[in-house]
C-alpha cells in the first residue's frame, strides 16, 4: 500500500488553566495499516527527536476496551465510523493530503488536563453514588441459585458493555451523561441482584450526575451515534422510567 501524508490541526494546551490553541503539523510517510494513534506516535517521536514537547493524549489498551481514548477527530468523538474507539481507527480510512482536526473530548464536567488529556473523574463519582450491588466479599450464594434467562443476561450484558470513555458526553450539545448513567442503571435494574437497591441507586446516580455539571438529555441521540460499544438510547428511556418509578415508589 502507498504511503500517504496528512495535515493535522492539534489542540495544544499547556495545563488546565492555560489558554489552548490549534497547532498545525504535517505527518509524512504514513502507512495505511497504521492506527491513528500510531500515526500520532510517529509525530511525537519526531517532536521528541527535535527536542519539542510531545502531544499529550491518553491511551492504554489500544484495542477498544479500556476507554482511555478521548480524542475528537474532525468534530466527532472517536472519529468517523461506528462501533470504534479512537485507537481502532486506521489511516487507511483517511485520504492522502487530508486535513484532520484533533481535539480533546469537550464538556464542562471533563476539564482539560493538558493538550488532549481530559479529567473524567466525574464518572467515578457517579459510580460511587450507586453503580454497584452492595454485597460484601464472602456473602454470596451459589452462582446458579438465581436463574437468569439468557435474554435478560444478554440485555444486561449489552448495557454493561459501556467502557466509560465519555464519547457520549462529548458528542452531546448539552454534555449530558444520560447514556453512561442509563447503561449502568439498566444493567442492574435488569438483574435480580440489583433489585434491592433499585430506587436508591437511580436517584443517587442521577443526582450526582447533575451535581457534577453534566447537562440534560434532549433526545437527539448523538450519544448513541458515537458510542464505541453501540449502546442504544433505549437505555436512556429505561433510565427515565426507572427514575420516575423510584420517585413514585419513594414518595
Amino acid at each position, binding site marked *: 500500500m502507498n504511503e500517504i501524508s496528512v495535515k493535522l490541526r492539534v489542540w495544544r494546551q499547556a495545563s488546565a488553566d492555560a489558554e489552548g490553541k490549534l497547532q498545525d503539523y504535517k505527518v509524512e510517510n504514513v502507512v495505511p495499516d497504521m492506527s491513528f494513534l500510531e500515526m500520532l*506516535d510517529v509525530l511525537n517521536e519526531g517532536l521528541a527527536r527535535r527536542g519539542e*514537547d510531545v502531544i499529550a493524549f491518553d*491511551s492504554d489498551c489500544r484495542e*477498544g476496551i479500556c476507554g482511555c481514548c478521548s480524542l475528537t477527530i474532525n468534530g466527532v468523538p472517536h472519529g468517523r465510523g461506528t462501533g470504534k474507539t479512537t485507537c481502532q481507527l486506521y489511516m487507511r480510512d483517511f485520504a492522502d493530503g487530508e486535513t484532520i482536526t484533533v481535539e480533546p473530548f469537550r464538556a464542562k464536567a471533563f476539564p482539560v*488536563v493538558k493538550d488532549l488529556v481530559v479529567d473524567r473523574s466525574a464518572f467515578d463519582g457517579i459510580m460511587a453514588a450507586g453503580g454497584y450491588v452492595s454485597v460484601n*466479599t464472602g456473602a454470596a450464594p451459589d452462582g446458579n441459585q438465581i436463574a437468569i*434467562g439468557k435474554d435478560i443476561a444478554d440485555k444486561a450484558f449489552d448495557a454493561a458493555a459501556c467502557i*466509560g470513555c465519555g464519547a457520549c458526553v462529548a458528542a452531546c450539545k448539552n454534555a449530558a451523561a444520560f447514556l453512561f448513567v442509563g447503561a449502568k442503571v439498566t*444493567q442492574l435494574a435488569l438483574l435480580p441482584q440489583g433489585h434491592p437497591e433499585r430506587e436508591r441507586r437511580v436517584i443517587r446516580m442521577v443526582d450526582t450526575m447533575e451535581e457534577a455539571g453534566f447537562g440534560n438529555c434532549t433526545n437527539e441521540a448523538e450519544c448513541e451515534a458515537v458510542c464505541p460499544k453501540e449502546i442504544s438510547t433505549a437505555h436512556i428511556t429505561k433510565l427515565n422510567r426507572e427514575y420516575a418509578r423510584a420517585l413514585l415508589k419513594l414518595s
Partner: protein
Amino acid sequence: MILDGKVPSGPIDSRWDRHKRDMLLVNPANRRKFNVIVVGTGLAGASAAASLGEMGYNVKAFTILDSPRRSHSIAAQGGINAAKNYKNDGDSVYRLFYDTVKGGDYRARESNVHRLAEVSVDIIDQCVAQGVPFAREYGGMLDNRSFGGAQVSRTFYARGQTGQQLLLGAYSALMRQVDAGTVKIFARREMLDLVVANGKARGIVCRNLVNGKMERYVADAVLLCTGGYGNAYYLSTNAGNSNVTAAWRCARRGAYFANPCFVQIHPTCIPVSGSHQSKLTLMSESLRNDGRVWVPKNADDKRPANEIPEEDRDYYLERRYPAFGNLVPRDVASRNAKVVCDEGRGVGATGRAVYLDFTDAIERLGEDAIRDRYGNLFAMYEHIADEDPYKAPMRIYPAVHYTMGGLWVDYHLMSNIPGLFVLGEANFSDHGANRLGASALMQGLADGYFVIPYTLANYLGGAKLDALSTDHDSFAEAQNSVSERINKLLAVNGARTVTEFHRELGQILWDKVGMSRKQDTLHEALDEVRKLRDEYAQNVKVVGRSDDLNRQMEVALRVDDYMEFAEMLVSDALDRDESCGCHFREEHQTDDGECMRNDERYSYVAAWEFKGRNAKPELHKEQLEFKFAEVKQRSYK
C-alpha cells in the same frame, strides 16, 4: 540461601481451611487503625482494596491511569476458570489443581495452586452477586466453555469481554467503598519507590503524573498489584502503561524476583504488520474451541487460503496432539506455530503467521452461532487486519502476553520484605512455567477477594509496627533517589529517543529470549542488553520538564528499569538449563521436539536478589515438592 514458602503441613485439600483457623485476626474495631496501600487497581488490586475496605481497614488505592476501571485486566477476553462442575463432565477442585500444576509444567507451588482451585468456586458466586452478566443458558443457568490444557468445560465467560465485566464488578465494589469512606483513590500516580523502614515495607513514593510532584504515603502494609512485565519486549499484548517499574523498584529494595524468564507467548495474536506497530492484539484462546489451526503442507504453496484443498493443508496441532487437538496449552501451540513458520510454511505477507479457520464451525453451527460466541473478536480482527474472518481464515502469530514470573511470595503472598504483599500477575506463585487460559482472572480475584483478607490480618495482627510518619529519613532517602534519577535522565540530552531504545531492547529479548532459547545466544543477549543499557545512560534524549505531565519522562523511567530487569531475566533463562513450559532451551528437547525437564536439578523456584547495577544477581532457591500431583512428562498427545 534456601527459601521457605511457609507452606502449612497436612493433607493438601484441607490445608488452607486449617490454616485459616490458625491465623491471627484483627478485631473489627481495630481495623480502621491500620493503613493499607494498594498499588494497582486491576482485578487483584481492586478486589483486594474493596474487600479490605469492607472489612474496615483504611485503604489507599493507587492507579497509573485516570480511573481504576481502565486497568489492563479489562482487556482479558476469554473467561475465568472455576471448578463448579456445572457441566457434570468430571470436573473437581482436584482436577483444576492438577491441570494447573501440569499446565505449568511442574514449576508452580503445589499448595498455592490447590488453594486457588478451592476458592475458584467462590469467585464465580461473588461476581454473580455483584451483577456480572456472565453468559447464561436458556434455562437461566451459567454457561461454560472449554479452554486450552483441560478436557472439561469449566470456563465462565461474558461474551469476549470477561475481563471487562469482572473488572467492572471489582471496580464497582471498590467505588462502593470510596462512597463508604474506607478507600481513597489516587489516580494518575506512578509508584517510583518502596519505602522500607526498620526492615519492613512502610510506604511508597509516587509521582503525581499531572503535575510531576513527588508524594509520600505511609502505611502498615503495602500490597503490590501492578501486573506483569511483558512490555519489556516492547511489542506485546499488554496495554501501553503496563510496566515493571513498581515491581522492579521493590526488587531494588531487596524483594526477590522469581522465575523472570517464564514469559508466556500467546499463540493467537494478530501478526505484526510493520515497524510503526505500537502493540499487538490478542485473539482470545476461546477461538480455538471452534477455529482450526493450519498451514499449507508445502512451503511453496502460495495460493490464497480458500483455494488450498483439504489434502494440501496441514492441521498440525490436530495431527501432532490428537487428544487435545487445537486446545493444547499456549506454550505448545506457540512453539508449533514457530516451527511451521521456520520451515517456511508460514502464511501472509511476512510469512510469520498461521491460519485460524472457522469454515467448518460456520458450516456446522451457522454464522449466527459463531457471531453470538465471538462477535466482538471477529469485529476486532476485521478492524485491524481489514479482512472479514467470516469469509477468509484469520492469520495469527504468537506474541508476548503474560508473565508467570514475578516477585517471590510465600504462602501468605508476602514477599521476603515483611509487610510487602504481592498479588495477581505481579507475583510468581501459581502458574509455574506456563499459565493455562482463563486462569489469570481466577488468580487475580482469588488473591484479592479470598486470600489477602486472611493473610494480611495475620500479619497486622502479629507485627510490631513503630509509629512512622512521612518525615522519616527512609521517605526522604527514597524521594531523593527518585528525584535524582529523574534529573539524571533529563540531563543526558543525547541523540536517540526513548522509544528507539525500547524497541531495540524488545528485539533482543524477542529474538534471543523468546519462544526458543539457547546458551550461546542467551550470552549474546546478556552482552547486548548491557551495552544498550550503557548507551541509554549516555545517549537517550528525554524532552520536557519534570514538574509537568510528561509522558516521555514517564516512559524513560520505565525503559531504564526494563534495561536493568532484562539482565535478570536473561540470567534466569541461562541458569535454567532445562526446558519447561514456556522456557524452551533448544539443548533440551525430546526426539519429537517437546520440552525436556530436568526435575532432579531444576525443580526449584529461582528467586533472584538484585545486587547492584553492574553486579551479578544472587540466586536463592525454593525447592518445589509435588506430593499430591503426580509428576510426569507433560503430554497432550
